[in-house]
C-alpha cells in the first residue's frame, strides 16, 4: 500500500486530505463528518476540548482506527483500511499522548527501533555483524547519533527509558519518530505535563524539524500560546465535529471556538 512513486509532492500542495470522515465506537460518535487537509511543509494544529476526537483523528490517520465513513487521501492516493505499519512505510510517524516507549530498552535502542523500516540487510549477516550488515548498522547508528545530538540527550542515551523523567521520555519518543525520517509527523500533546522551560525546548525542536527537514507536522496541543506560536493553520474539533478551520488569528477570534472552550451549551 505504499504511495505511488508519482511526481513528488511539493511545498504547499495537499499532502493529506480527510474527507467527510466519521468514526464511532458502539454508540459513541467520536468523529462526525469531519473534513480538512494538511499541506506539505506546514505545521497544522488540531485543537479542541477534552474528548473532542483529536487523538481519534490521529489514530485514523496512522491506521489504528478505520473510520466507518469517509475518504483519506495521502500523497494523492485514497486508501482504505491501511494498517499502522503500512502507514509507517508510507512515511507517517507519530508520538503518543501517554508516552509509548519500549520500556525495556535504552534511549538509544528506542530511537534505533525507529530505523526498523530503513534496515534492509539479511538477518544472518546481522547476527554475525560482518560485511554489508556491519556497514549498515554503522550508518544507522550515525543517523541516530545525529538525532540524539539534535535533541540534546547525549547523556542519557544508555539509560533505560523507564528511569527517565517524563519530559525526557517525551523527547526520546520524538527522537524515535524522527529516526523514521517521516514525511508527516503526528504529535499528540508533545508538551503535556512539561514545565515552561521544557515546553520552550520542545517548541524549538518542533520548529527546527519543520524548517530544516521540511517535515510536515500535525500537532495536537492544549496550550494556546504554543499553538499560536507554532502553527500555520488550526483545525478545531468539538464533540467530534469540526467547528473552525483557519489561521491561528482567525480561529482565536471565532465565536464558536470561544464558546466551545468556555463550555457554552449547544
Amino acid at each position, binding site marked *: 500500500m505504499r504511495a505511488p512513486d508519482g511526481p513528488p509532492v511539493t511545498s504547499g500542495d495537499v499532502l493529506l486530505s480527510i474527507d467527510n470522515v466519521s468514526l464511532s465506537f458502539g454508540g459513541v460518535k467520536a468523529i462526525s463528518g469531519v473534513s480538512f487537509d494538511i499541506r506539505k511543509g506546514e505545521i497544522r494544529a488540531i485543537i479542541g476540548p477534552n474528548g473532542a476526537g483529536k487523538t481519534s483523528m490521529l489514530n485514523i490517520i496512522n491506521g489504528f482506527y478505520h473510520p466507518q465513513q469517509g475518504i483519506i487521501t495521502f500523497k494523492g492516493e485514497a486508501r482504505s483500511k491501511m494498517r499502522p505499519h503500512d502507514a509507517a512505510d508510507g512515511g507517517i510517524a507519530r508520538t503518543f499522548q501517554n508516552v509509548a516507549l*519500549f520500556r525495556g530498552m535504552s534511549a538509544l535502542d528506542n530511537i534505533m*527501533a525507529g530505523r*526498523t523500516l530503513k534496515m534492509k540487510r539479511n538477518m544472518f549477516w546481522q547476527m554475525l555483524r560482518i560485511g554489508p550488515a556491519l556497514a549498515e548498522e554503522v550508518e544507522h547508528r550515525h543517523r541516530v547519533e545525529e538525532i540524539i545530538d539534535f535533541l540534546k540527550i547525549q547523556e542519557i542515551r544508555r539509560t533505560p527509558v523507564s528511569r527517565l523523567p517524563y519530559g525526557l521520555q517525551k523527547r526520546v519518543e520524538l527522537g524515535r519518530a524522527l529516526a523514521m525520517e517521516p514525511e508527516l509527523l503526528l504529535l499528540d500533546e508533545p508538551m503535556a505535563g512539561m514545565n515552561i522551560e521544557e515546553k520552550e525546548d520542545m517548541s524549538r525542536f518542533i520548529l527546527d524539524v519543520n524548517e530544516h527537514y521540511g517535515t510536515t507536522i500535525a500537532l495536537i496541543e492544549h496550550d494556546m500560546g504554543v499553538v499560536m506560536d507554532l502553527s500555520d493553520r488550526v483545525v478545531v474539533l468539538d464533540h467530534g465535529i469540526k467547528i473552525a478551520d483557519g489561521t491561528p488569528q482567525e480561529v482565536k477570534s471565532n465565536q464558536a471556538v470561544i464558546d466551545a472552550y468556555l463550555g457554552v451549551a449547544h
Partner: protein
Amino acid sequence: MIIAFGQFLEVLVSGLLAGVLYSLVALGFVLIFKASGVFNFAQGAMVLLAGLALVRSLDFLVANGLPFWAAIIAALLFAALIMAITAFLVERFVLGPLINQDGLTLFMSTIGVTFIIEGGAQMLFGSDVYPLRLFPSDAWFLFEGSFPGGLLVSKIDVWGGMIAAVLVVGLAVFFQQTKTGRALRAVADDHAAAQSVGISLNWIWFIVWLVAGLVALVAATVWGTKLGVQFSIVFLALKALPVLIIGGFTSVPGAIVGGLIVGAGEKLAEAYLGPFIGGGIEYWFAYVLALVVLMARPQGLFGERIIERI
C-alpha cells in the same frame, strides 16, 4: 564421605541436564508469551509434532538408502519446514483473526490448537513409539581417580546440554543484533508503539511461533533420543508450567534457570527424601516448589514486578 559426595554430584549433574529439557519447553512458552501475551498451551503438542516429523522422515529416508548423515540433515530441514507451516497456519487462521481479543480468549484458542496439532501430527505421522538415535545413548564415567567407580554422566544429557547452550546463545544474538530481534523486543514492550514504527504484528507473531517451533524441534531431538518419540511428550509441557512460575513468565533467563532448578531439585529430592516418604517425589516436587515461589514471589524469580495501576 567421598562416596556420598560423588553420589550427590552424580544426581545433581543428571538432574541439571534433565532440567535442560524443561528449560527448552519453557523457553518456547516465554517467547510467545512475551511477544504476544498469549499463553501457548500448544507448546507440548509442538514438541510432539516436531519429534514425529523428524523421526518419521528420518526412518523413511534411511529406509530408502540415503546415508545416515544426509538423512539427518534432510529430516531436520523437513521438520523445521513443518514447524514453519504450523506457525503460518496458526497466525493466519487462529491468532491473526483474534487480534485485540483478551488473554483468556487467546489461551482458549491455543487449547483448540493443541488438539488439532496432536490429532494432525498422529494422523500424518503415526501414533506408535518411535525410537530416535541421533546421539549416543551410553554414558561416561568421569573422575574415576577421585571417586570409586567414577561419576556416571549420560552422553545424551550432555549432548542435550550443549545443544541447548548453543540454541540459547544463538537466540540471544538474534534478539540483540538483528532487526527482527529488536522488533520482537519492541512488540513485547508496546504493541501500538511497535506498529507505529512500521513493525507488522502479524509478521512478528509468525516469527515467534516459528522460533518456538524450532525450539520445540530441539527439545524433541533430545527427548526423543532419551525415551523415543511418543505421545507422552506432550506431558512434558505440564512440567513447564511450574518452571514458568518459578522463573517468571516473561524472562528468558528465568525459563532456563527455572528448568535447571526443577530438574536438579526433583532428582535430589527423589534421591535424598524419597527413601523417607516413599518415593514418587519427582511427579509432584516441581508443583510444590512452584507453590512456594508463588507465595514468596508471585512474579517468579526473574519476572518483572507486576504493579497494578489504580
